[in-house]
C-alpha cells in the first residue's frame, strides 16, 4: 500500500509534490490505518477511496495547478538531453496510442491482468519461500528425524527422547538442538476462555534460533511461566505493556505468568501459535521406542548436512545399551538411519510445489500476453510501413526509429504496470485468504518493496519483449514501398506472427492439460468413500472441568446424559462421541495384542480412539459384524469395537466377535470385541484407512482419559444448529469453552483445500491463456484477411464460392493451431510429471485429459479462425479492388 501511495504521490507535478508530497503520503497512510480498525470491508473501501482520490488529484493538479511555488532551476547535461528526448518520445507515443484507443485498451487490459497475477503470486511466493527465515544464520538450521527401513514404522518418524538427549550431549556436528510441538489447549482470562494453538518447546529453542522477546524475557522452564505471540498481545490484550507479570490459567489449568511477548515475525512453528510454554526435557521420562518428537538443530560451523549423518547414526545405534528397552527395540534401532533436512523445507512442507507451479502458470500467461501484444505491435508497424520509410528516407537513423517504436510499448507496459499494482493490491488479500491454512508467514504477505521491484522489472521486461521485435522490424522499412505506393500483400513477416501464435497455442495447451489433470484429481478426491457420511453432520468439542467429574464412570455418565439432552433437541437424528473426529484430529498410534498372540514382541501397530453413544450411526459408519456401543458400554469398561482392517490383520479370515484385545493405550486392560465396523479415512481422502480400536469413553487410568471429546450430531440442521448447542453447553457446564465447531462437509473441504486452491488457480490461468491465445489467433487471421482482401476479392469476382474462401482462411488458422497443439502436447507430457505429487486417481499421462484438452484447444482455434473467415467471404470485390 505504501509503495502504491508513494507512486501516486510521485505522479503529481513536481512543484506540488515537493511542497505537499510527504504530507499527502502521511495523510493517506493515516486514513487507511484508521479504516483498518473498522473492519476488513471498510478497509478495502477506504483503500479504494484513497487511491482514486490520489489518482484524480494528480491528474487535476496537472490540468489546473493550484500551486505555483518556485521551482528550482536545473542545468541539463548530456544525460538530461537524452532523458528529455525520451520524455518527448513518450509524449508522442502517448498521443499516438490515444489515437487508437481500442488497441491501447486491449493491450493495457491484457498486460495489466497478466502482470497483476504475476505480482500477486510473486508476493506470496517471495514471503513464504524466498525470504530467509527471520532467525540467526537460517541456512544452518535443520530438522532432524529418523527412518528404519523394513520396520513397521512410517518411512519417516519423529525422534525418541533418548536420541534427542544423546544428540544434544554427544553430537559434535550439532551446535544446539531443541524440541518443539504444536497443540491446542485452553487459555482463560477474566472474560475470555478459548482453545488456542500453543507450543511447548525445549527452552533451548530460543537460543538456537537466536531470537529475543520484544518485551520481557524468555520464560524459565523451572517456573510456571509462558511467552505470548505478538498477535495475541495485540488481539487479546490491546498491546498493553502491563501484560508482563500477569498470570492466567492455561494448558492443563495451571496458572502461568506471562514473562515475555515475542516479536511480530516470530511465528514458530507456524503463524497460529499464540503461547509458548518452554520446558526442559527430563531424562527420567525416557521410554525407549516411544517416538514422535519434532527436533530442530543448528549445524556446527563448517559442518554440512551430509557430514553430520554418520555421527548421528552411530550415537542413535548406541541407545539400546544406554537406555535399555525391548529386544524388538534394539533390533529396530540397529537399522536406524538419521534424516537431516533444511528446517525451512520442513516448515514450508508441501506448499513449495504448488506455489512454484502457480508462479510458472502465471508466468506462462504473461508470456502469452506479451506474444499477443507483440503481434498487435507488429501489425501496427506493418501498417505504418510507408510512414517509416519516409522517415528513414529523409535521414532518421535506425536508433531513432527503434526508439520511437519501443516507446509505445514501454508506455503501454508502464501504464499496465501501474494498473497491475492496483490489481495485485486487491488480489493479494483474496489470494492469501484462499490459500489453505498452515503456510508459514502467509499472514505477512503484502505488496512490499520486493514485490514492487518485481512488478516494475517485469513490466519493463514485458514492455521490451512486446516491442523489440516489431521495433527492429520497423527500423528496416522497405524503401521500395515508396516507389509504387502500393499496399503490400506479400506474406513477408507472417512467419514471425505465425510462430507467436504457435507458441501461444502450445503454452495454452500445456496449462489446459495441467488444469485438466487437477480437475480430474479433484473429482476423484470428492468421490472417494471415506467410510462415513459428510452430509448433515455437525461436530464440536467442549471440555468440562467440573470438579465432580473425577473418575471414569462419573465422567462417562455426564457425557451420556449430555448426549441424551442433545438427542432430545428438534431435528437431531442421532448423537455420538469420538475422541478424534476424522479429518480434524489424528488418532494415537498403539501396539495391539490379542489373547491368541499376547507376546509384546510380536504386537501389531494400530491406532486407538474412544467412542460412545450412536457414534457409528451418526457418522454413517456401517457396523459389519456384531454391534455398536450401548450406554452401558460407555459407563462400564470392558467392551471394544474394531475396524475391518484391524480385524483382518489380527484374525485373518476369522470372526472377531468375542475375542480379547489389549493395546499400549491401556496396558494390561483386556477388552472384549463386540463389533466390527467399516474402515474410515482419518486424515484425508488420499490416505489408507487406519487399523483402529474404538474403546468406550469410560477410562480406567488417567493415561487414557479423554478431556475433550468430539460430539458428532446427525441432523438436517448441521449448518445452523451451533447456537442452540452453545446454549445447551452453557447450561450444562458454564465454564467450559465450546470449540472446534465444524460440519463434516466443512472438514472435507478443508482436507481437500490444497488441491482445490491449486486447481482453481490453475484453471483461471488456463482460461486466461486460452482466451489470450484465441484473441491472438483471431488478430493474426483478421490481419491476414485484411491484407489479402484484394486477392480474395479477385477470387470472389472470378466465381470462387464463399464456402471455399472461408475454408481457405480457416485452414490457414488450423495449420498454425495444429503445429501449436503438437508442440503443446510435448510440453504437457512434462507438466504431468511436474505436478504428479498433487494428482489423485489420475495418471500424469491420462489419455482422456490429453484428448479433451486438445479438443478444446482445436475448437477454440477453429472458432477464432471462423470470424475472420466469415468476414473474408463477405468481401465485396469492387470495394476491395478499389482500395488505394
Amino acid at each position, binding site marked *: 500500500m505504501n509503495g502504491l501511495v508513494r507512486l501516486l504521490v510521485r505522479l503529481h507535478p513536481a512543484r506540488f509534490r515537493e511542497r505537499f508530497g510527504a504530507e499527502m503520503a502521511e*495523510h493517506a497512510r493515516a486514513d487507511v490505518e484508521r479504516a483498518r480498525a473498522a473492519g476488513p470491508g471498510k478497509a478495502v473501501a477506504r483503500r479504494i477511496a484513497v487511491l482514486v482520490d490520489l489518482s484524480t488529484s494528480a491528474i487535476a493538479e496537472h490540468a489546473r495547478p493550484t500551486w505555483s511555488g518556485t521551482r528550482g532551476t536545473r542545468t541539463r547535461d548530456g544525460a538530461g538531453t537524452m532523458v528529455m528526448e525520451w520524455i518527448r518520445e513518450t509524449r508522442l507515443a502517448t498521443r499516438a496510442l490515444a489515437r487508437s484507443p481500442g488497441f491501447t485498451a486491449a493491450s493495457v487490459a491484457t498486460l495489466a491482468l497478466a502482470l497483476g497475477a504475476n505480482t500477486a503470486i510473486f508476493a506470496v511466493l517471495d514471503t513464504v519461500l524466498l525470504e530467509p527465515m527471520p532467525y540467526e544464520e537460517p541456512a544452518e538450521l535443520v530438522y532432524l528425524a529418523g527412518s528404519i527401513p523394513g520396520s513397521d514404522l512410517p518411512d519417516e518418524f519423529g525422534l525418541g527422547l533418548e536420541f534427542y538427549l544423546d544428540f544434544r550431549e554427544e553430537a559434535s556436528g550439532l551446535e544446539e538442538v531443541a524440541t518443539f510441538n504444536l497443540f491446542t489447549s485452553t487459555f482463560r482470562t477474566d472474560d475470555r476462555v478459548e482453545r488456542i494453538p500453543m507450543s511447548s518447546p525445549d527452552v533451548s529453542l530460543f537460543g538456537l534460533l537466536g531470537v529475543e522477546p520484544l518485551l520481557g524475557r524468555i520464560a524459565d522452564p523451572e517456573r510456571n511461566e509462558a511467552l505470548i505471540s505478538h498477535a495475541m498481545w495485540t488481539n487479546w490484550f490491546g498491546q498493553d505493556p502491563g501484560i508482563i507479570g500477569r498470570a492466567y490459567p492455561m494448558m492443563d489449568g495451571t496458572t502461568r505468568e506471562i514473562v515475555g511477548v515475542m516479536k511480530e515475525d516470530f511465528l514458530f512453528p507456524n503463524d497460529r501459535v499464540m503461547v509458548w510454554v518452554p520446558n526442559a526435557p527430563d531424562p527420567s521420562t525416557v521410554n525407549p521406542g516411544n517416538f514422535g518428537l519434532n527436533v530442530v538443530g543448528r549445524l556446527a560451523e563448517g559442518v554440512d548436512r551430509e557430514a553430520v549423518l554418520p555421527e548421528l547414526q552411530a550415537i542413535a545405534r548406541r541407545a539400546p545399551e544406554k537406555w535399555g528397552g525391548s529386544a524388538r527395540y534394539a533390533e529396530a534401532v540397529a537399522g536406524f538411519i538419521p534424516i537431516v533436512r533444511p528446517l525451512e523445507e520442513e516448515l514450508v512442507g508441501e506448499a513449495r510445489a504448488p506455489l512454484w507451479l502457480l508462479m510458472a502458470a502465471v508466468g506462462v500467461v504473461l508470456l502469452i500476453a506479451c506474444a499477443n501484444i507483440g503481434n498487435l505491435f507488429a501489425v501496427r508497424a506493418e501498417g505504418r510501413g510507408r510512414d517509416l520509410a519516409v522517415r528513414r528516407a529523409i535521414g532518421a537513423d535506425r536508433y531513432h526509429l527503434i526508439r520511437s517504436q519501443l516507446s509505445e510499448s514501454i508506455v503501454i507496459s508502464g501504464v499496465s504496470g501501474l494498473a497491475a499494482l492496483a490489481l495485485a493490491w486487491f488480489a493479494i488479500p483474496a489470494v492469501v485468504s484462499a490459500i489453505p491454512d498452515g503456510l508459514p508467514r502467509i499472514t505477512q504477505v503484502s505488496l512490499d518493496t520486493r514485490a514492487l521491484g518485481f512488478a516494475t522489472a517485469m513490466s519493463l521486461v514485458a514492455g521490451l519483449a512486446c516491442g523489440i521485435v516489431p521495433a527492429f522490424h520497423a527500423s528496416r522499412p522497405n524503401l521500395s514501398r515508396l516507389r509504387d505506393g502500393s499496399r503490400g500483400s506479400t506474406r513477408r513477416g507472417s512467419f514471425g506472427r505465425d510462430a507467436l501464435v504457435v507458441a501461444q497455442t502450445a503454452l495454452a495447451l500445456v496449462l489446459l492439460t495441467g488444469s485438466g489433470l487437477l480437475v480430474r484429481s479433484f473429482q476423484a478426491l470428492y468421490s472417494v468413500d471415506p467410510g462415513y457420511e459428510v452430509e448433515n453432520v455437525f461436530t464440536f468439542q467442549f471440555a468440562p472441568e467440573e470438579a465432580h467429574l473425577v473418575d471414569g464412570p462419573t465422567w462417562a455418565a455426564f457425557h451420556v446424559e449430555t448426549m441424551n439432552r442433545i438427542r432430545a433437541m428438534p431435528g437431531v437424528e442421532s448423537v455420538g462421541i469420538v475422541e478424534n473426529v476424522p479429518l480434524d484430529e489424528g488418532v494415537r498410534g498403539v501396539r495391539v495384542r490379542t489373547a491368541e498372540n499376547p507376546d509384546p514382541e510380536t504386537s501389531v501397530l494400530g491406532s486407538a480412539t474412544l467412542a460412545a453413544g450412536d457414534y457409528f450411526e451418526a457418522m454413517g459408519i456401517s457396523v459389519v459384524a456384531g454391534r455398536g456401543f450401548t450406554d452401558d458400554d460407555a459407563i462400564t469398561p470392558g467392551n471394544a469395537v474394531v475396524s475391518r482392517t484391524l480385524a483382518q490383520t489380527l484374525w485373518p479370515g476369522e470372526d472377531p466377535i468375542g475375542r480379547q484385545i489389549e493395546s499400549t493405550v491401556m496396558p494390561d486392560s483386556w477388552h472384549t470385541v463386540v463389533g466390527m465396523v467399516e474402515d474410515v479415512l482419518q486424515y484425508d481422502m488420499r490416505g489408507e484407512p487406519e487399523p483402529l480400536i474404538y474403546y468406550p469413553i469410560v477410562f480406567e487410568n488417567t493415561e487414557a482419559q479423554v478431556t475433550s471429546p468430539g460430539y458428532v450430531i446427525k441432523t438436517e440442521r448441521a449448518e445452523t444448529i451451533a447456537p442452540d448447542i452453545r446454549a445447551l453447553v452453557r447450561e450444562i457446564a458454564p465454564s467450559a469453552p465450546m470449540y472446534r465447531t465444524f460440519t463434516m462437509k466443512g472438514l472435507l473441504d478443508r482436507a481437500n483445500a490444497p488441491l482445490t486452491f491449486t486447481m482453481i488457480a490453475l484453471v483461471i490461468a488456463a482460461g486466461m491463456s486460452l482466451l489470450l491465445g484465441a484473441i491472438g489467433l483471431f488478430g493474426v487471421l483478421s490481419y491476414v484477411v485484411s491484407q489479402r482482401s484484394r486477392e480474395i476479392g479477385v477470387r470472389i469476382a472470378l466465381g470462387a464460392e464463399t464456402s471455399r474462401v472461408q475454408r481457405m482462411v480457416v485452414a490457414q488458422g488450423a495449420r498454425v493451431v495444429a503445429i501449436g497443439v503438437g508442440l503443446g502436447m510435448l510440453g504437457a507430457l512434462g507438466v504431468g510429471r511436474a505436478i504428479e505429487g498433487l494428482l489423485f486417481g489420475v495418471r500424469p499421462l491420462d489419455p482422456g485429459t490429453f484428448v479433451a484438452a486438445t479438443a478444446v484447444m482445436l475448437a477454440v482455434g477453429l472458432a477464432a479462425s471462423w470470424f475472420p473467415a466469415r468476414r473474408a467471404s463477405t468481401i465485396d470485390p469492387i470495394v476491395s479492388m478499389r482500395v488505394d
Partner: protein
Amino acid sequence: MTTSDTQGMSPLDYHVLLALASGALYGYAITEAVERESGGAVIPRAGTLYRVLARLVSWGLVEERAGPAEESHPGRPRRWYGLTAEGRQALADESRRLGEVAELAMRRLGMGRP
C-alpha cells in the same frame, strides 16, 4: 481579499477554513475536523485536501504556522496550518452570504422567522 474573490469558494474550501477558525491544525486533524463538522457529508482524502490547502495558501487565506511546542510525534515533523486575517474575513463573508441564502430559503418555504 474582497467578497467577490471568494465567490469561487467550494463547500470544501469553506469547511477547511471553518476547521482552522478554532486554531491551527495539521493535515489529518483538518480532515477529522471537517468530517465531524460537516456531519460526515464532506470527507477530504489526501489528494483533495492538499489541493484545497494549496489553493487557500496561494490565495493568502491560510498560512503555515509553527505547531504547538509540546507536540511530539514520531517521524517527520508535522506542518500546521492556520487562518490569516484575510482568511478570517473570507470565512466571515462567506458565512454571512450562506446565512442570507439560508434565510431566503426558509422565507420561501414559509418557515422563516416572523
